[in-house]
């Protein structure tokens, strides 16, 4: 904050440089937390692998090769092969993309719905608030994975339905956080000033409330991706998500289950990667919370 004031070059500053300054400031605060920084780089690395990794793998993820089935890690097959002789390294690389896509998309979908419900609930209050929040309480009362199981057994197992199911239990957590933040911002005097100027509710919500409650939303988002990834893998593991031969990480884990004593590497490597993804998003989210908290500045 004070860095902007003390910098004389900002006398007639353009908005861009101020934004850049804020970004630098944010990075500086984030980098104080080493774990968060490592988490951030790990996420970046995983995204790059998910996008470009499949271009560099030499094996086909789904082509069986029974000559080398259940082989341990070697120079040819870095992570070994499974019971069909498929290269686990290749399958994991392909799987990262699938799992992260499900995690991110379901968080975005659930987040958007939750944000809208939360803002409407907090801003208008009254009966609408009561109805929305009691609905959210009902959703929260179900264990997330159970709700997803129920939904998928109705809708059928597919990637799209897994995303919808996970998004559904993202909704109440987002709605609650957004409602709380909205309540605290709604009563500030600049909102009253906008009302006194005759601004529409739409303008107040999108230009004056939403930008001021983004921090908790971003933090919640990055933490929720971790649990969404875990749920996506969990559903595939139970056979309700991605269907064989898809190399989704949870499905890979499930493949390895029968051979856990004879060929532990089949389950080990996908499990390790799931753990890395979840860990990365969790520590990053934690660091983000500290970095975005104005009281920590």
């Amino acid at each position, binding site marked *: 904050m004070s860095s902007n004031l003390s910098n004389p070059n900002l006398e*007639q500053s353009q908005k861009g440089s101020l934004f850049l300054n804020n970004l630098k400031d944010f990075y500086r605060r984030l980098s104080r937390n080493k774990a968060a920084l490592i988490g951030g780089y790990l996420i970046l690395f995983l995204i790059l692998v998910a996008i470009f990794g499949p271009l560099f793998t030499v094996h086909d993820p789904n082509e069986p090769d029974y000559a080398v089935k259940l082989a341990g890690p070697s120079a040819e097959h870095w992570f070994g092969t499974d019971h069909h002789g498929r290269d686990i390294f290749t399958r994991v690389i392909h799987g990262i993309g699938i799992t992260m896509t499900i995690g991110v998309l379901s968080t975005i979908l659930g987040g958007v719905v939750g944000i809208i419900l939360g803002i409407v609930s907090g801003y208008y209050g009254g009966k609408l608030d009561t109805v929305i929040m009691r609905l959210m309480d009902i959703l929260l009362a179900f264990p997330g994975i159970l709700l997803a199981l129920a939904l998928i057994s109705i809708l059928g197992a597919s990637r799209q339905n897994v995303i919808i199911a996970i998004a559904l239990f993202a909704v109440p957590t987002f709605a609650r956080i957004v409602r709380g933040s909205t309540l605290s911002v709604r009563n500030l005097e600049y909102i009253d000033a906008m009302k006194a100027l005759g601004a529409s509710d739409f303008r107040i919500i999108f230009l004056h409330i939403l930008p001021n409650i983004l921090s908790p939303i971003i933090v919640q988002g990055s933490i929720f991706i971790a649990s969404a990834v875990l749920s996506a893998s969990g559903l595939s593991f139970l056979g309700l998500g991605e269907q064989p031969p898809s190399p989704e990480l949870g499905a890979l884990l499930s493949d390895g289950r029968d051979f856990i004593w004879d060929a532990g590497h089949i389950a080990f490597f996908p499990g390790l990667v799931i753990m890395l993804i979840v860990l990365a998003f969790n520590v990053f989210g934690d660091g983000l919370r500290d970095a975005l908290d104005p009281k920590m500045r």
Partner: protein
Amino acid sequence: MKKELLKVNNLKQYFPVKGGFLGRTVNHVKAVDDISFEIYEGETLSVVGESGCGKSTTGRAILRLEEPTDGEVYFEGEDLLALNKSQMREKRKDLQVIFQDPYASLNPRHTVGQILTEAMQIQKIAPRSELRKRAIELMEIVGLNAEQIDRYPHEFSGGQRQRIGIARALSVDPKLIIADEAVSALDVSIQAQVLNLLKRLQREFNLTYLFIAHDLGVVRHISDRIIVMYLGKIVEIADKKSLFENPQHPYTKALLSAIPIPDPEKKKERIVLKGDVPSPINPPQGCRFHTRCPFATEICRTKVPELRNLDHMKEGHRAACHHIEKIHSGEMALQK
């Protein structure tokens, strides 16, 4: 003849108190209970009173930031409370507000330029191309450096932020500005600057102020007329001179006796009120002040006093007390 700009009739603002099973309304906070007054064009009318007496609520009710429970608010002869949403939106141009907290009254993510242009955009004051030019003019009018137009609120001091708030209120060419404790959060030297700015703007733009405050020194500096409120009711209304020199209501007397006089030689009679302000949820019957009034008698406990003007008071000076005559004649005096 002075022209009436705003006329408030029997304004009531009750807030429901929810409680019990299923959150039913169990009671009401009578924040403002049946008050009437008028503001003349070009004057500064102050509303004073202690915390919770309903002075801010009155301002907010006039602006319809909270919908009043009952009453009429005539602005230039038109009842604001009868307008629908879009009619009210147009009218809002004429009534603006300056808030108390200079830190909470500006969106921290918008620059000064954005804040001012947005206000003008909402009310379609000027074509888009001229907005920035006008924003710069406004900044100069309120005594800010126009070069700071692209700065964010956190880069300004409290006094400067309050000037931004004033510029925002001015940007739509209002007729009436409600200043809700506009200088209470500032330190004394800055208070004086902002008050003088408000006075200058009043002359230049022919503004009318409804000035809500609790600091009698500030009120004395800026007002033409003063309303004293206690527990949601008006207890006395008078021009500045009459109120300070010839207060009639015992509450006003007590309030004025609390102003320190910077003269150690001069001994002043200080009227110290007993007890606390009663809860506005169940305000006392009769005169609301009777629980703390040194002159209270039986009639005060049963009958609500009307605002009255008597012979020894100037025209327009009215007070709501059953015993004005007796107190004035000395028949009722404070017992030592």
